[in-house]
């Protein structure tokens, strides 16, 4: 119980796959095997980042759906961990991409492709969210903090667009974000109910 509630336990759990990805990146190197290794890692880090966004954004709707759940209250108190993890995996994803492309010319040559610029927008939107996800910024920004954190919604939409455009087959993207969309709809229905009575 104490272990579960220690903040470092959750940090460790959320970081663990990232350590695995980093090690894989190191061992796969730059040979011809390295390229297929990189494309595997690009896929995994991107999906992990999207998954963290979905988890972070599912917490609030779940609190409305199951108001007396201790688990979702616990999750609510640690929501920023998932947001920062989403940024961490997006950062690793972007670093892998840049290393794979090898030059700024190559990166710029494909920046206008829809599958690419949606990714850059998603990543850019996550930067201010991650930079302000610490206690000091939360305290200093006051009510502006909540407004800034609403950037999560366009970031999630850009992430979904990036995933749909760049990946063959929409199934995995739609499973992740379809579930989140369903939760958001349920929350809206739930929060609007009292007005009808």
């Amino acid at each position, binding site marked *: 119980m104490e272990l579960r509630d220690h903040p470092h336990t959750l940090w460790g759990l959320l970081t663990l796959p990232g350590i695995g990805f980093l090690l894989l990146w190191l061992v796969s190197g730059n040979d*011809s095997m390295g*390229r*297929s290794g990189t*494309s595997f890692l690009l896929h995994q880090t991107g999906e992990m980042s999207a998954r963290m966004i979905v988890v972070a954004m599912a917490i609030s709707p779940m609190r409305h*759906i*199951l108001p007396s759940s201790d688990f979702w209250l616990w999750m609510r108190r640690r929501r920023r961990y998932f947001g920062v993890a989403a940024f961490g995996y997006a950062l690793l994803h972007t670093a892998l991409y840049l290393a*794979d*492309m090898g030059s700024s010319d*190559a990166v710029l*040559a*494909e920046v206008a*492709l*829809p*599958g*690419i610029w949606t990714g850059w927008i998603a990543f850019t939107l996550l930067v201010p969210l991650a930079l302000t996800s610490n206690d000091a910024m939360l305290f200093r920004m006051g009510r502006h903090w909540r407004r800034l954190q609403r950037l999560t919604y366009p970031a999630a939409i850009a992430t979904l667009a990036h995933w749909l*455009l*760049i*990946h*063959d*087959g929409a*199934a*995995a993207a*739609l*499973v992740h974000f*379809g*579930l989140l969309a*369903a939760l958001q709809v*349920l929350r809206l229905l739930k929060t609007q109910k009292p007005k009808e009575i």
Partner: protein
Amino acid sequence: MTRSMIAMMLLSLSATGAQATGRFQCEATDRATWLSETQVAEKLTAAGWQVSHMKEDGGCWEVYGTDPENRRVEAYLHPVSGDVQLVSQRGTIIFDIRNAN
């Protein structure tokens, strides 16, 4: 409600298992007549491509690599002739044999 949603998610997951991605479908061919991975890679390399890796998809060879213009692409090749059928760069189709003729 939550339970039916989880059931829906599992259903959609199982329905989308090992399936062709549907980006391109090559004509039906006898697997025994297919070019080997090495032959495909040699043919493309000779034409100025860099081949990273490949897999079967939709009855084609789906090759990941770099085209002669140095673009990171995914190409669908006819498994017997080795002719390029479709090329997509980061999800944007830049060559489609059905529109090329």
